[in-house]
């Protein structure tokens, strides 16, 4: 074995991204297992987990969008508003204009791309602050929602309702109702499949494509990235374009879950998505983050909420107050962990032992 191969194989200390991801995944599993052990019941059934996914498919997609933009050092707070606009537009399109499902999907993606394109142009080519641009985007989307239809609407398109009702059933993960002895299979909505596929695609994109790596580079230090020959403007533009596209898809997935449209659809989704990304280990400063972490971020947030409900704190304010507390915990944890890096590294303990072994062999 030559020296070089050995240096390659040597275990590196975790990068910031990996470290934060590990922490999040560990905390999620610890929490979920603790919930299973203490409250049992629903937590023991796989359906509980699937319901979390069913209810949050569109949030997962929005959070993916936010993760992409945040890794590039930006922010997009228009995702919630965009979701609402897409939901309303699709319902009106399907019911009043005789659209079919395929064209409705195209419409939602088109709206998303249009917003993303404008955001990207203004932010990367005119160098306007992303917060202000996407804030205006959010205002515009929310306002347009009411201009498309000021009254709440419900989808009545037959084909769409069929799609909405479709569930993927997994019998062996189901459970048997004791009284009747009937097996209720585990059910997964189509939106969840879409969301998970998107998570995988984004994961692949961030890890393996040049666009993904360029995104990390401009988030880490855009000046350096420019000097290294990265096309900073185009990369930033693309990140907002993709964010818009994903928000459009999130809108359609939302519609598949609820089938209803009104002005307050996905209210606060942007902040939930940001919170999920942060819990998942994405830093708002850019350059650090992972979409798998974001998925676990969404699940962690939802688990906390169900734990609060299960544990008997039924007053409506407890859910958000605990969410806030949890967010506070994660934010502080990240701050402490990242600021203490280099001083004391847990991962170093393992690494040193391995190098010692190599040295001894020599």
């Amino acid at each position: 074995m030559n020296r070089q191969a050995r240096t390659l194989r040597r275990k590196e200390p975790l990068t910031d991204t990996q470290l934060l991801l590990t922490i999040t995944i560990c905390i999620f599993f610890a929490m979920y297992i603790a919930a299973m052990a203490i409250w049992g019941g629903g937590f023991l059934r796989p359906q509980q987990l699937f319901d979390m996914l069913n209810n949050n498919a569109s949030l997962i997609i929005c959070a993916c969008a936010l993760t992409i933009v945040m890794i590039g050092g930006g922010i997009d707070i228009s995702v919630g508003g965009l979701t609402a606009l897409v939901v309303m537009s699709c319902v009106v399109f399907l019911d009043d204009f005789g659209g079919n499902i395929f064209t409705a999907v195209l419409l939602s993606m088109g709206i998303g791309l249009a917003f993303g394109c404008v955001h990207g142009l203004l932010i990367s080519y005119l160098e306007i602050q992303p917060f202000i641009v996407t804030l205006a985007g959010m205002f515009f989307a929310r306002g347009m929602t009411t201009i498309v239809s000021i009254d709440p609407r419900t989808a009545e398109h037959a084909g769409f309702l069929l799609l909405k009702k479709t569930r993927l059933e997994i019998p062996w993960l189901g459970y048997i109702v004791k009284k009747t002895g009937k097996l209720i299979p585990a059910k997964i909505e189509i939106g969840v499949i879409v969301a998970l596929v998107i998570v995988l695609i984004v994961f692949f994109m961030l890890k393996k494509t040049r666009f993904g790596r360029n995104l990390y580079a401009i988030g880490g230090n855009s000046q350096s990235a420019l000097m290294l020959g990265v096309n900073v403007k185009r990369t930033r533009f693309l990140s907002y374009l993709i964010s818009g596209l994903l928000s459009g898809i999130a809108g359609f997935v939302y519609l598949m879950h609820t089938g209803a449209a009104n002005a307050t659809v996905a209210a606060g989704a942007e902040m939930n998505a940001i919170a999920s990304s942060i819990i998942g280990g994405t830093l708002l400063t850019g350059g650090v983050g992972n979409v798998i972490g974001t998925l676990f971020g969404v699940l962690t947030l939802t688990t906390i909420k169900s734990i609060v409900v299960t544990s008997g704190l039924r007053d409506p304010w407890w859910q958000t107050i605990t969410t806030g507390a949890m967010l506070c915990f994660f934010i502080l944890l990240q701050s402490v962990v990242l600021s203490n890096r280099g001083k004391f590294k847990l991962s170093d303990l393992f690494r040193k032992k391995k190098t010692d072994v190599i040295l001894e062999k020599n």
Partner: protein
Amino acid sequence: MQNDVVLKMRGINISFPGVKALSDVDFTLRKGEIHALMGENGAGKSTLIKILTGVYTKDSGQIFIDTDGTESEITIRSPQDAQNKGISTVYQEITLCPNLTVAENIYISRGEGSLVNWKKMEKDAGALLERLNIPARPRQQLGSCSLAVQQMIAIARAVDMDCKVLILDEPTSSLDEKEVAMLFGLMRDLKAQGVGIIFVTHFLEQVYEVCDRITVLRNGELVGEYEIENLPQVQLVAKMMGKELDDLTDMDKKEFVPVQDAAPVFEASGLTSSDCPNPFDFSISKGEVNGFTGLLGSGRSESVRAIFGADRVTGGKVKVNGKPVKISKPIHAMKHGIGYLAEDRKRDGIIADLSVRENIILALQVLKGFFRPFSRSEAEAFAEEYVKALAIKTASLDTPIKSLSGGNQQKVILARWLLTHPQYLILDEPTRGIDIGTKVEIQKLVLKLAEDGVSVTFISSEIEEMVRTCSRLLVMRDRKIVGELVGPAVQQSVIMKTIAGGGD
């Protein structure tokens, strides 16, 4: 001979609004040579470099580059374009991404396709690092490497892109001696491989250590191109300044005799801080100029930072004028009449967007108190006085400090501390990265301050400066004070010996 030329610039002209930055400058770089580009600040070095890297576009003139033995004229449109044409630059500030791995930094935005082949990239990076003897691992996060290694990785990237011309813009200014040696080793390797290297630096000794040829610019005009053997150091300085060196020689240091029985202005015993773990003793008398010397990273900056309370002070006793006091924050030190000009001007000195006036009065304002702001006219009077006294070149008092040249920024920071009328002033590398004229002015100022009874602690990487100004030197090695040189012992050879530790 002509065949060896890799880069030729002829009759380069460029002007900015109101200024002719370069007029008719020629520059020739040969294959496999290290070529120093010298000149004071404002001489046009960085302008020339920026034309070469595509940041600026020249008004007129020609640039030729050698491709496989044939010379062809080129135009350089952008940094990216320069890279494609074989001109790579490594800047003083690291321009890599700290959050990516070493391998990624070497290969980002290169190669075909839209996918990243991690395995191949890491293997290639490993081979490259090994070939160039760079102590880094491909999968390491770049941020965890030392500055010197990061710099070398930047060079490795340039080398791997088959560059014919490598521009090193002040690469050594934040490296210690060992790291500089490492870098020079790498430069010599590249030279042997036939790369033409343009080396821009303020350190004269380094030029003579590593370069083959020198081109000197002054006021945007070419002074000449010289073989290194034919141009002694003194003459080089003379060429750069455009006058003979009487300025430097007419400065004479007076023998320092402390006042009998007077308590030292500042005295510390067993002082430690978070960045300076080894306890040290230190004292300075009224009107004395002393200095900390040692290699970069030997703990000299950390020591003075501990004195000023800039880092978290963890132990030790401090007396000012014989009275025990507590200094744990900069404001405490300031209240006892101590001023501190920090090492890194950009990071720790200037408040970039504030005006010259606001920057000058800042420290005095803080001392005067939160509830007693200076009126505009008072502030203007103070600023005016010091802009005149230190001959600071600025368009007006309301100009943001960031638009001043490095030397003038440094003078503003000096003015800021002089305005507080300190009894003890700490100057950490006040002459770094500024032109020789200003350097001399600052050294003279230090001696004048001492004559007026101000105690000064002076730190400089250039030992000559220390010899010229200090009457007592504390020599540091590995974060410990290893020697104290007084009076006649303050000589270059003695200092070197003490730093190296080879004397005994």
